[in-house]
């Protein structure tokens, strides 16, 4: 999360440039957004618990204990109960957080890179390349992403890497459109003309002038993409085409939960709560970033 806030500060144009002003306005605006602060705290907590999973998980998440199957929450050592194989639910949730968050953030990075590249090239080159790229984006937009996601996941042997690739490569379109629009706006500004007159190469123009001045929408879109990627992973895994057991993700923990509604409802309740918590928190952060960076932004 710290990178995003860092980016938020950078987008304002180097903090500390004006001496004596400790907090830059975007950061101050972000801090005023209470839900975003709550979200940041929640996400930090989740990231920490995933990172230190081996230290804080009360049990081995893969340890099968057939003597204590279906233990209800707060039963003996099992804070959130156990699953049909007697594995500790809390430990599994903590470890599942590692997988789900990794997929979420990695898929976001991939979609941000692809989306930014497509959007930048389309806007910068214009003409035929622009129309080809944007029509392709239209095509990708008119296919419901869950259908595409499931189809690809069914083709390719599922693993953490393949699921991340699939989600990342099916979610860059919104970023591409956004970046293209932003670059087109920046391209009309005088300093771009000045840089061109000064003999800046295409690459330098893009990397030094165009992209740094388009970060605000990119940061917001990237944050919301993390939330969407976590949701996408959970859908695919819930339907059985995502992360495969014994590896746990929040989504695949819900895979069989429906069969145990009557006997063990906690199996269906807690993993879903974790997804909702993580995704809501990240969306709140995105909302706060939007207000802080560019209130007029509509994503």
């Amino acid at each position, binding site marked *: 999360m710290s990178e995003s806030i860092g980016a938020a500060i950078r987008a304002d144009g180097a903090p500390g440039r004006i001496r004596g002003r400790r907090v830059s306005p975007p950061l101050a605006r972000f801090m005023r957004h209470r839900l975003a602060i709550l979200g940041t705290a929640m996400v930090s907590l989740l990231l920490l618990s995933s990172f230190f999973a081996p230290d804080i998980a009360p049990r081995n998440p893969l340890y099968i204990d057939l003597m204590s199957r279906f233990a209800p929450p707060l039963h003996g050592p099992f804070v959130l109960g156990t699953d049909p194989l007697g594995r500790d639910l809390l430990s599994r949730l903590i470890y599942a957080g590692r997988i789900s968050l990794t997929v979420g953030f990695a898929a976001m990075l991939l979609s941000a890179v692809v989306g930014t590249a497509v959007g930048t090239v389309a806007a910068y080159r214009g003409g035929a390349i622009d129309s080809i790229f944007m029509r392709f984006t239209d095509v990708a937009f008119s296919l419901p992403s*869950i259908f595409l996601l499931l189809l690809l996941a069914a083709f390719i042997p599922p693993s953490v890497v393949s699921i991340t690739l699939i989600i990342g490569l099916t979610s860059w379109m919104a970023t591409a459109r956004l970046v293209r629009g932003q670059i087109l706006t920046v391209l009309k500004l005088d300093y771009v003309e000045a840089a061109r007159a000064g003999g800046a190469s295409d690459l330098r123009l893009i990397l030094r002038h165009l992209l740094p001045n388009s970060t605000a929408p990119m940061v917001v879109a990237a944050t919301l993409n993390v939330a969407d990627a976590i949701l996408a992973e959970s859908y695919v895994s819930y339907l059985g085409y995502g992360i495969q057991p014994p590896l746990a993700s929040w989504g695949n923990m819900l895979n069989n939960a429906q069969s145990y*509604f009557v006997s063990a409802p906690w199996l269906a309740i807690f993993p879903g709560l974790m997804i909702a918590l993580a995704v809501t928190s990240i969306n709140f952060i995105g909302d706060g970033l939007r207000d802080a960076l560019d209130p007029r932004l509509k994503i």
Partner: protein
Amino acid sequence: MHRLLEGVAVLVGVTVIAFALLHLAPGGPLAMYTLTTSMRAEDVARISHELGLDQPVPVQYARWAANLARGDWGQSYRDSRPVLVDIIDRLPGTVELMLASLLLAIGIGIAVGILGALKRYSIFDYLATTGAMVSLSIPTFWFGLMMIFIFSVFLGWIPSGDMYSLGRPFSVFDRLHHLAGPVTVLGLVLVAPWSRYTRSGMLDVLYQDYIRTARAKGVAASAVVVRHALRNALIPLLTLAGVQLPMLFGGALVTETVFSWPGMGRFFVDSLGYRDYPVLMGILIFTGVLVILGNLLADLLYAVVDPRIRFG
């Protein structure tokens, strides 16, 4: 006219993607013969020649697309019926679910949006905005699971799945009873954008001169809101219905699976388990076509309703 050409281009793109995916499918079209039977190589070559698989890929695509246009979408591996027939059989269930959910979402969304705009920054507005955010963050399938858990397993109010009670004659009440769960779930997925856009649309309109004029003339407050403001605030929302279509199909897939609702989405998930590629591609193209048509329709309606918009 320009929009129409664009739609056709996108449509061709959709079929190209579907065709490419079909070719990427592991095993290839002859896996059934090469992997399961000890067939001689020359027989495999003969079949592949008969099916046109030895032709260059663009030629194969052209033939496939021509068949598509003629309504020949191939046969399902699973039940050997034409794909298009299989899909159209499942369509009414999905359409019924989607229409009911969309109506519910539009009704609630517009009402919440108007109230939010009229009482901006009130507790209601704050709760509605936050609630919209949360509703977008809850996984649809889990919300469905919780609905089933609370209202069917625990309270026993609604059935946990299916479209009608077995062995009982059709009745509207029975159908609505079965619709309640899935429609609530799918409606919740869709409601947030409607309330948000209505709110911002109303806010754009509410402070314009003609609203002030109407108020000054002594038009009743409710009439100003409904007849003057809402009518103009709703115009941009027409496109939202088009933009939401992919979301509607995606949400229907998940909802149908959770509530075992016999529609296109559940058919897709079932076919996935059987690796029934012709059906999977068929549904992908079918939804793509519907989405493109929906967007086109929304754009055209937009131009009809708002005379300021003209397509060149």
